[in-house]
């Protein structure tokens, strides 16, 4: 099975911080004032993907 990881489109992110607050493994943080997913920690649960109010996060292989 292919493992999916969350990725933030930094051109779209409005830096509300919602994804950071819901991440169960603390894999999301602010980098250059935009949300950024540390893919080595991401478990692909998609909670942040669904939380994003403007759809700026997607799951990628």
């Amino acid at each position, binding site marked *: 099975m292919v493992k999916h990881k969350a990725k933030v489109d930094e051109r779209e992110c*409005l*830096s509300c911080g919602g994804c950071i607050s819901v991440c169960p493994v603390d894999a999301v943080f602010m980098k250059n004032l935009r949300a950024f997913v540390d893919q080595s920690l991401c478990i692909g649960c998609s909670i942040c993907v*669904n*939380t994003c109010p*403007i759809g700026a996060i*997607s799951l990628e292989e």
Partner: protein
Amino acid sequence: MRYDVIVVGAGPAGSVTARFAAKRGAKVLLLERRAEIGIPVLCGEGVSQRIDKWNILESKNWIANKLDGAKIFSPDGTKVTLSKEMAGNETGYVIYRDVFDKELAHLAGKAGAEVMLRSEVIGLVKEGDKIKGVKVRRMKEDFEIEADIVVGADGVESKIGRWAGIDTTVKPNDLETCVQYTFSNVDYPTDYGEFYLGKKIAPGGYIWVFPKGDGVFNVGIGILANFSKPGLALKLLNAFIEKKLPDFKKGIPLRLLAGAVPVAKPVETVRDNLLLVGDAARHADPITGGGITTSLEGGRIAGEVIGDAVEKQRFDRERLAEYEKRWKEAFGQKLLRNYMVKEIMLDFDDKTLNMLADSLKDYSFEEFSTLSLLKALVLKHPTLLMKLKPLIKLSEKKMEKKI
């Protein structure tokens, strides 16, 4: 570099904490990662007029408009009105949050706190388990700053709490995920705040319309994150404007912002050498999502407790627990009650909301507050809202005690 206190984040809670700690003689550093305080705005910009009584702000520059009241619409459009006439003339303001935040930071600085911009905190400095300060990244340079107390005022996405071992992760059913437009040139003559409820309109949340005056409006949506899909909040808001708010379609969009509001139970807010305030402490109202009043109240308490701690040179959890005790007295009951109300209301389907609204459409409310709304609901529907009844009583008892 060494300070008594480092406050991380210059939002309302951080600035007020810094100010009241500095006022009591503490050497305070207020760190903001952004280049400009108050920007970007991440807020619906509505606040209760109650804040006037606290004299925490000096100017009126942050007030965009004073509301005539609130109109709450159930899914079928039934309207419940809370107007200033029935609410003792005290309603709410629509504010310029950027101006508001700048004034509070200014007042922190005037009280003696040092304010540092573009300074991102990237970790805590620890000696064993003991917190000794923060690691800061500033213009590509990393360095450490020592302090006896670190205050996490770093918002909904707070890392300070997590780094200190407090589990601040917000569950998706405890987070409102939001977007908001600011439109100008809107021909929609009202000075009421409007709230639209419904599972299809805004699942687990609501759509709001806040008039800022001169044809400028904030129109936003918050939905519960566990009902959210990628980009759903924005899609629902656009669809609602398209269908129900045609006057806004003709408006000029000046701003689109996203936001996230914790509608959670408050977390543990004190450790040795550490406090959490504002959204980082989950000090936002679980029903309305409002967090400014609690941030100001909580920040002031935090600042005073820190001032005392510095004077006595005691920074242990037992000493700082005074902060937790005092914010629980000030608004802890209310947050807990409204959390339980939120949970109960999530079970209401659209039909129930329509029925409840219908029973209140001509009701004369005693004041402009969610409590007066809840009281009216309990009065009208004692059996349906049986679970609410003890919660309302609880808070009334609390109020009596205060008097």
